[in-house]
């Protein structure tokens, strides 16, 4: 057990240590301050604005900002759907894969545009290299940047006084991608290749096995480049069907450490960014520590359950629950990943969640059902948490009979309506989706497990989609017209309704005066 404590302690120390400088760097990017990459990237940035016909000093109000988010998402959705449907006629398809069904293509497009990365397919048997790098890799970047942009808007809402505008979406999107996501991904992708993650445009390899000489097909592809951003952007969609459990995605304990750290790195850093931006570091740390308490409690529960509450068999040495786990990761790194990936809305896996012990599987479900706010998705996790903060301030304000305030801004009915949209849409859609699925007559045929665990497979699936996570109890057969269409719609709603609400909340906050904070006002 003690080795698990060291592993997790090291992880937390590394995470906190790296998130502080990165959080400050992201703040500089957000306010447009010069950073070390500015001389190299400014020409690219300005060139793109020119092509887009965007003036970077022109700011947007909440309506315009939301409109830009939605239009950009829609364009991505249509492009990704078309790319999949047409992949059979396009290049970079050495295995000659035909396009998927219309509903699977819709589900996948919705899933990647919404930063969920729920996968009802296996990459190696469904998607061409072109679809992966030209479609999915790109959405891995921009869906993450969109989440961060929305957070920037909300942060500005708290800082600005009596303003109608909250920044420019195109500038936020571009700067986040260029200055934060691409440089980090480059470094991590190369480190992953060094450890053995594949990165090639060559066809799958066929080789003969040693003992009986039978042919073994080894799927390849430009995987490392996509995996780097899949983790950093809390996307989580595997290049291969078995995600980061598959050795070509995550071959060593070191690659595992890089990947699991990348998942929480940006969401944790953004807490620091927030504290910096509102000129009150303690506000950032209060949120950071709250998240960390949930995270560590979840870590302890899952790790203990996997180590101690696994089954024992007559004549077999007891060593925890190894079903659905890789040797190199073992109980420690598998439990850690399961918690990290569901605390963040990442959803990649290095062990099969369906084969976790009952308590070990409950913790990921709980973390998702909180609404992905324990670090959560990049950007979305923090604006989700800020909605909970406002809710708390509001309730506490009612209890003591004061007008609730947060960061010097009065919290009023319109703000609370937006907060309710952020907080309530995910659980509502989890319920509706699960309810709709269990009344389908063929639901039982979608399951691998029987009894209560079979129900958990359905509940997990809709929890995952309705919180933009993307992990699965993979025994659930997700590739059906019903789940593809319903799940696709849920993923889009649950992404863009709370995000729009966050931007409108920002717009309304920015319009307000700041009231002086004094000791008498507890909140």
């Amino acid at each position, binding site marked *: 057990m003690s080795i698990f404590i060291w592993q997790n302690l090291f992880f937390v120390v590394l995470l906190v240590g790296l998130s502080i400088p990165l959080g400050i760097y992201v703040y500089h990017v957000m306010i447009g301050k010069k950073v070390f990459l500015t001389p190299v990237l400014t020409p690219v940035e300005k060139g793109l604005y020119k092509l887009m016909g965007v003036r970077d000093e022109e700011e947007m109000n909440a309506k315009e900002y939301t*409109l830009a988010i939605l239009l950009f998402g829609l364009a991505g959705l249509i492009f990704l759907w078309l790319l999949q449907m047409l992949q059979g006629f396009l290049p970079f398809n050495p295995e000659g894969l035909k396009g998927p069904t219309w509903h699977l293509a819709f589900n996948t497009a919705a899933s990647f545009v919404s930063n969920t990365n729920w996968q009802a397919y296996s990459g190696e048997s469904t998607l061409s290299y072109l679809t992966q790098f030209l479609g999915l890799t790109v959405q891995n970047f921009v869906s993450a940047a969109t989440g961060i942009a929305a957070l920037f808007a909300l942060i500005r809402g708290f800082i600005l006084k009596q303003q109608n505008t909250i920044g420019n979406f195109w500038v936020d999107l*571009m700067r986040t991608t260029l200055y934060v996501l691409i440089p980090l991904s480059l470094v991590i992708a190369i480190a992953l290749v060094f450890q053995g993650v594949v990165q090639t445009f060559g066809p799958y390899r066929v080789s003969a096995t040693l003992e009986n000489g039978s042919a073994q097909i080894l799927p390849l592809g*430009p995987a490392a480049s996509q995996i780097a951003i899949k983790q950093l952007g809390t996307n989580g969609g595997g290049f291969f069907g078995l995600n980061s459990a598959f050795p070509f995605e995550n071959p060593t304990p070191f690659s595992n450490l890089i990947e699991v750290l990348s998942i929480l790195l940006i969401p944790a850093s953004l807490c620091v960014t927030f504290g910096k931006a509102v000129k009150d570091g303690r506000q950032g740390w209060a949120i950071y520590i709250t998240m960390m308490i949930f995270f560590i409690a979840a870590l302890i529960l899952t790790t203990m359950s996997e180590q101690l509450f696994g089954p024992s068999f*007559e004549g077999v040495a007891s060593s925890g629950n190894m079903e659905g786990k*890789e040797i*190199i990761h073992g109980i420690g*790194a598998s439990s850690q990943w399961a918690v990290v990936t569901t605390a963040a809305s990442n959803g990649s896996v290095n062990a099969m969640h369906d084969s976790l012990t009952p308590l070990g599987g409950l913790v990921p479900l709980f973390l998702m059902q909180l609404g992905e706010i324990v670090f959560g998705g990049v950007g979305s996790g923090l604006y989700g948490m800020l909605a909970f903060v406002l809710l708390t301030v509001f309730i506490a304000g009612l209890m003591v009979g004061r007008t609730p305030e947060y960061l010097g801004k009065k919290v009023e009915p319109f703000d609370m309506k937006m907060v309710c949209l952020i907080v309530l849409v995910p659980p509502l859609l989890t319920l509706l989706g699960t309810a709709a699925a269990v009344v389908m007559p063929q639901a039982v045929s979608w399951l691998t497990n029987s009894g209560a665990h079979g129900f958990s497979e359905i509940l997990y699936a809709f929890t995952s989609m309705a919180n933009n996570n993307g992990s699965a109890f993979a025994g659930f057969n997700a590739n059906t017209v019903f789940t593809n269409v319903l799940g696709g719609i849920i993923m889009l709603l649950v992404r863009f309704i709370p995000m729009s609400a966050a931007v409108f909340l920002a717009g309304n906050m920015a319009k307000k005066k700041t009231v002086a904070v004094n000791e008498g006002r507890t909140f």
Partner: protein
Amino acid sequence: MIKIMKQIKPALVCLVGMTILCGVFYTAIVTGIAQLIFPWQANGSMITVRFADGTQKEYGSELIAQEFLGSEYLIGRPLGTSNLSPVSAEQSELVQTRIDWWHSFDPDNTAEIPMDLVTASASGVDPHISPAAADYQVGRISQARGMKESEVRNIIQTYTKGRFLVFIGEPAVNVLKVNLALDGLL
């Protein structure tokens, strides 16, 4: 409506720009660097054996498991993933058939079977087994091959990787590499 029309152009141009930047340039740069500096890893960590007569043969990837069934080979974990609940009746039955298989395969071995030999992995192609699982098989392999137990142990030791930085991850024995070495190919 006018506002929507005004934003359509930036949305489309931005998507095209990002597709070129993040899809084409970024992927190409990573692939280029990978193929230049780490070509062996980037192409699947293939094990190539060169023979004395100058010919060479590929024996698969060191990262992907192969099926071994002969008693002279180190045997890996069950292939494929189950997605079964570890505490379900279906799983107990499945594990029991694996336990029975091991007992009929190696009847003289009365030691407890290590857990990883009777449970499926996450990838379904786990290339590793635990050191305990390798140790469990030493007697049988040395008997089948007429080798000394210490020789078998040495080979296993050679292809065992410890934890990263002493405490990250778990030690693991690469099954394919051990078997290649047992056959005198590595």
